[in-house]
Structures are given as C-alpha cells and as structure tokens.
C-alpha cells in the first residue's frame, strides 16, 4: 500500500492518494476519503445508483456471523458481500449505532452482535480478520471513553487497548493474513497524557502499522453528532502532532458536516458515511448546500423530514440540482407515501440520495482544499447547521416493519 500526501501548502487540510492496495492494485482512492458504512443496498442497486469504486466500511459486530462461511469461502469478505472490486476497511463496531454499556471482562471486549452480547478476545477478532481478509483493519481496542468519563476509565481503556494491540500483532504473525494491513487504534479519551501513552505504545510496532485510527472520543450513534467541537479539535490536533505525519489518519462516526471540515483541516484523511445513514434512518434527506459557486441557501434548511405531510403533494425532487437516481426519477411526494406506508423502498431512496449528497460533499471538500477555500466552505456549512436541532437517535436492531 502506498499513501502519498500532496506537497503541503500553507492552507489547512491535506490531499492524498491511496494506491497500491495489494488485492486491488489498479484502484486508487483520493483522500479525504469517504467510506460507505452499512448501507443495505445490493450490488445491483449500488450500480444502478452510480456508486462505483466505493470504499466500504464493515464492522466486526455486524459481520461476525459470517465467520464460518468466510472460512470455507476463502475469497474474503469483499467478494462475499458482492463488492470484490471495492476497498474494504474493517472496524470493531458499526459507528451508526450507540455503544451499549457492558461489563469489561479481563482480556476481552464486550460487543453486541445481532444475536446478543459476546466477549471478544483478540484471538476471536483476528480469526475474523484472517477469514474476512479486508484490505485494512483496525486493531482491537477498548474505546469506551467519552468527553466526561472518569480518568480511571481512560487509564483502564488504555491499558486494555495496549494489551489487545500486542495480542493482535502476535496473532497476525501466527496466521497468514494475506493482504490485510493493520491500522493502529489510538485511545486515551480526552487526556493528552493518555493519548501520548497510547501513541508511544503503538510506535513500538510502527513498522507493522500503516495508519492510525483515532478512537475513544465518542460512543458512536448520535453521540458523535453532539461532540464538543473545541475539545475534540484540541485533542485530535495534539494526537496528530505526536503521530508520524505521512501515515494515513482515520476517524469514524456520524460527525456533523461542519465538524468533518474541522477534522479535515486538522489533518484527518478518512471518514465514514454514518452521518448520511443516520439521517436516512431518521427519514430525512440531506439538502445542505456545499456549492461555493452557487451559495444560495434553501429556506427548508440543511435536512428535510420526508414524513412531513407538507410533502404529500410536492412533486419536486429532494434537491433540484441533484443528479442522484432518487432525485432524477422520484419525488418528495412518492417518498412521503413510501414512508407513510412503511414500504422498504422509502429508506432505500433516502439512502441513495443521502449517500450521493455526502459523496459529492467530499468531492467538494477535496476541491476546496485544492483551492484553499476550506474556510469559506466551513462558513457556509456553519450557517446552515447553526441553531438547528435535529434528532439522530437511532437504536440498533430496530425491528423492520412489514
């Protein structure tokens, strides 16, 4: 794998290119990169919707039930889920869903999969990695820390995570992991001291680590939306300052679009689409404007609730200029009807639009870095999300109706 950062300019943010991925050597991915999180769209639907060459984020908690099948399959999880030409990145927990609190057993991590809680050891986790053969995976870690958690919890999380990292490395040497590259999970909550300790520990294995996952700042789900931006920026800035500059940096979670820009300007290279997924699950469509060339803002705000009865006879698309399949073909009225009648197609149409919107947003971000316009974009997004209080509280395993 090769990660090349474009020569640094004075401006904020960095552009990079991810190439030379062992399994898919002809593919390249531009950073800041958006990973597609659990989207529930089949390969055919993704193709029809124009989502080619995407990078996907898979989580251990939502995929562990595939382990036995993957073991026999031998071709890896990318092909198993029908996306063999796509970059796959495995994390521990799906960032869309709030972490459930669980007792931390020694040497294992409580993880909630579909059928209930399991305590995952590094060995279990690495077995899954071995069988799923993703392109990248994060090391197992206890990231159960948040903005006001106790010092004791942070110290505990760090100790446990250090042990898990050592174990992951031990297991990786024992098994023949074909092409999967390891991303070091950095913990330490909001404490600079503990972040330093975590980074120091990972650095001992630096030749095996191709990038860093900055974890432990939120507890997934809507918690990532309501982060204290100043505190997060400070600790992320500090953490990046003590990490090697040229390696790829990842943060996962449903950050607000303006928070993404903060993290981009600090130097984060990879994000995921959980924000777009949460918005879809809340029956809303993203409508925020990120076009600096045409900065007129809609009165309806950055997100619209398609269950609102005012859309029942609105035969316009979610966003007039949007080129997604949903907007080119369907209306707000139809989506409103599908949501009212609990039809499966409703969430699908929302997901297609929201992923498209968010993907285009990342294109705009890269463009803005190039043109040194990131602060203009930030201002534009800030205005739109200012004083807006949307709910993003989605629970895991919400039973599907119908």
């Amino acid at each position, binding site marked *: 794998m090769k990660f090349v950062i474009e020569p640094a300019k004075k401006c904020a943010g960095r552009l990079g290119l991810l190439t030379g991925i062992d399994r898919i050597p002809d593919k390249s991915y531009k950073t800041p990169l958006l990973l597609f999180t659990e989207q529930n769209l089949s390969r055919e639907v993704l193709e*029809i919707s124009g989502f080619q060459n995407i990078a996907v984020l898979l989580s251990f908690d939502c995929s562990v039930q595939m382990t036995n099948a993957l073991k026999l399959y031998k071709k890896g999880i990318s092909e198993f889920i029908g996306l063999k030409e796509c970059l796959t990145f495995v994390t521990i927990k799906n960032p869309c869903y709030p972490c459930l609190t669980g007792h931390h057993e020694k040497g294992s991590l409580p993880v909630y999969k579909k059928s209930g809680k399991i305590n995952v050891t590094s060995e279990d986790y690495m077995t899954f990695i071995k069988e799923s053969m993703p392109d990248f995976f994060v090391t197992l870690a206890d990231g159960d820390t948040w903005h006001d958690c106790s010092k004791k919890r942070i110290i505990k999380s760090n100790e446990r995570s250090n042990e898990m990292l050592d174990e992951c490395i031990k297991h990786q040497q024992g098994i023949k992991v074909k092409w999967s590259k390891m991303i070091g999970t950095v913990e330490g909550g909001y404490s600079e001291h503990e972040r330093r300790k975590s980074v120091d520990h990972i650095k001992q294995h630096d030749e095996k680590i191709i990038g860093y996952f900055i974890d432990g700042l939120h507890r997934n789900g809507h918690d990532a939306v309501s982060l204290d931006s100043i505190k997060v920026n400070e600790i992320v800035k500090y953490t990046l300052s003590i990490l090697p500059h040229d390696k790829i940096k990842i943060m996962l979670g449903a950050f607000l679009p303006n928070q993404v820009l903060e993290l981009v300007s600090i130097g984060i290279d990879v994000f995921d689409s959980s924000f777009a997924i949460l918005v879809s699950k809340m029956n809303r469509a993203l409508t925020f404007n990120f076009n600096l060339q045409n900065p007129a803002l809609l009165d309806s705000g950055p997100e619209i609730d398609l269950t609102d009865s005012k859309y029942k006879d609105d035969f316009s698309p979610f966003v007039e200029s949007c080129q997604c399949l949903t907007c080119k073909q369907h209306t707000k009225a139809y989506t409103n009807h599908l949501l009212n009648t609990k039809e499966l197609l409703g969430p699908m149409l929302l997901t297609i639009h929201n992923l498209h919107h968010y993907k285009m947003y990342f294109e705009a971000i890269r463009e803005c870095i190039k043109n040194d316009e990131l602060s203009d974009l930030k201002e534009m997004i800030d205005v739109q999300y200012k004083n807006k209080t949307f709910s993003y509280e989605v629970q895991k395993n919400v039973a599907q109706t119908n």
Partner: protein
Amino acid sequence: MTGNSPLTFQVLSKCSKTKARRGLMMLRQTKPVETPVFMPVGTQGTLKGVLVNQLKMDNMNCQIMLGNTYHLGMRPGPEILKKIGGLHKFMAWDRALLTDSGGFQMVSLLQLAEITEQGVKFQSPFDTSTECMLTPEESIKLQNVIGADIIMQLDDVVKTTTTGPRVEEAMHRTIRWIDRCLEANERNDDQSIFPIVQGGLQPELRKQCAEALTKRDVRGFAVGGLSGGESKDDFWKIVSLSTDLLPNDKPRYLMGVGFASDLIVCVALGIDMFDCVFPTRTARFGCALVRSGQLNLRKQTYECDLTPIDEKCGCSTCKTYTKAYIHAVINEPIMCSLLTIHNVYFQLQLMRDMRDAIESDKFPEFVKTYMNELYPEEKPKWIVDALKSVNVDL
C-alpha cells in the same frame, strides 16, 4: 380490433396438443406485454425493496405490474394521484399497470364489509363511525384516477366454498355491475375494463356468466372466485370450463394464482395472465423459490452454503450472492430486496420458458420435465387429471 385500441391482443402461436397459447398484448400501442404473463403485485405503488429500474433491467424485463385500488385509494389517495396524473407518474413506472376493483380487498380486509345491490358497504378503517360505500361507479372512478392500463370491474365476491343461492345471486349481480362499470368508465379510450367470470364451483352458473359477459364490448376477461380454498379438482375444472367459454381472440386473466405448478397447469388450460402476492410475500419471510419448491434461508443449514439460490438462475441476486450471505443478513432490509428480486425473476423466467416452449411447440415436453422435477415421486392426481384433459400424459 382497430389500430387505436388501447388494448390489442394477438395469439402468436398455439400449442398443438394443449390449450396453451403464446400472445402479444399491446397496451396503449406502446407497452408490449408478452403472454402468458405473471404480474408481480406492487400493492402500494412499489415492489418491496426493489427499484423500478431493476424491474426494467434486460434480464428481469417485467412488462406489467399490479396495484391495489383499495390501498392506493387510502394512501396516497385519489387527490394526490389526480394531481400528478396517475400511478404511472407517481411511481415512475412507464410500463403497463393493472388495478383490481378494490372490492375483494375490502371484503377480505375489513370485517364489516357488506355487499348490497348498490355496492360494497364498509366502515372507514380510519373512522369506524363513518359508513362508506364502494359502488361499481366509485370503483371505476377511482381506477380512472389511478390510470392503470387494465382495470377490473367491481364484482360480487363470495367465498369460493360458498354454496346455495348466494352464489347465483353474486353471479347475476356481477353481470349487472359490469354494465354499470362500463357505463361509468370515463377513459374507455385508454383504460380497458375486464369483466370477471363468477359462478362459484357450479359449471352451469359459470356458463351463464361467461355467456352474458362475452356479449359485452370488452377487450379481455378475468376468471374470478377461485384460489380461495376450493379443492384442486374443482379448481382446474372451472378454469378449463372458463377458457372454453371465453373467446379465443381476447386475453384471459386468472386472478390470484401464482404457484409454479398452478401456473403451468393453467397455461396448459388456456390462461394468459396471472397475479399473486405469494412470491413477494414469501421473500419477506426469508424464502426463495426454486424449481423443486422453496428454500427457507433462515435455516442453519445455509450458514455455510456457498452456492447461489439457483446455479442456473439469471437474476442479479444469484449472479452475485450466495445462500450463506443471504442467511447472514436475514431480517436486514437487504435480504428482502435480494429475495424479492430472485422470486420475481423466478416467476417471470418460468413464464418466459413457457412462452418459448409454446413457440417451438414443445410445451407438453416442458410440462413433463418440470413436473418430474417438482414431483420426482408421485404426482398429485389433480395435476395428472388436468393435464390429461389437454392430452398430456405425465
């Protein structure tokens, strides 16, 4: 049939042994529907978890879909459909649509529906103090707003297993109602009403009904009141009698039938069109249709099954996914999407295979092969009898 007719039907080839026929139905001159055809049911203006684009893909090539007037009349309701100009535009489907009259849904879904000479009386499902009436005129008015290419008359529905004078009353009322429906149709130049042959399980009543209905100026016929718990013996005999009574130059639609063996037998008996919720409903419960029956992918045995649902299937699900994958995402929305695609494809492919077999005059051979695969041991007697009646010996 004049060149401007909203529905033309041409029999392209006929099986030399059975009553099976391959045809081409052209709706509003632009929407071809090859028959025999299976129409998937998109009750509320969508097939569960499937994009209209997927239905129009070359391999799937779904040419006609069914919508339910009762559901669509409730939600989104006639005002919205009128505003946008009908269901085709509302759901972005530019191919053919068929709607039912709403009567059957009412009688089966609403406990307190009552049929009078005027129409179907029912309590509003949203406000039990309000009494509503679906008359033949109302049904057509609603279907005119929905705008499907083929619309159904309101018929007097009795349980298939009902006996006695009620069956006869329903049959006569159905005949009286077709005239009210035809009279009420304000879009006769682009929407074709199909009358429905009723008469329960009594050949004499079926005969009377068909004779009366064929005197009307209509472009196709439906056979109703079957597939409701009657014996298979009664079922096939009534189907066969009905196709004998109906004119050869118009399409014949058997309502509510969709199991593979029923489809094959009824095509052999001369039916051209079918609909059924079963393939899409069973998908929602995690079941996939295969030639030997159906597979319940919830079962643990599929955890490590790395083959597609059907190796020979040409659907996008089978081309990409294994049974193990579908088992791993059971209950997730994507499961429903993947299985709906496969099951609808299964039905449409079965119809394509039958059309091809009829075209090359190999339909009896096709039937034998299929039935041998479906029932490797003993074949159900009704199937043997029904096929024997059209000169196919299993």
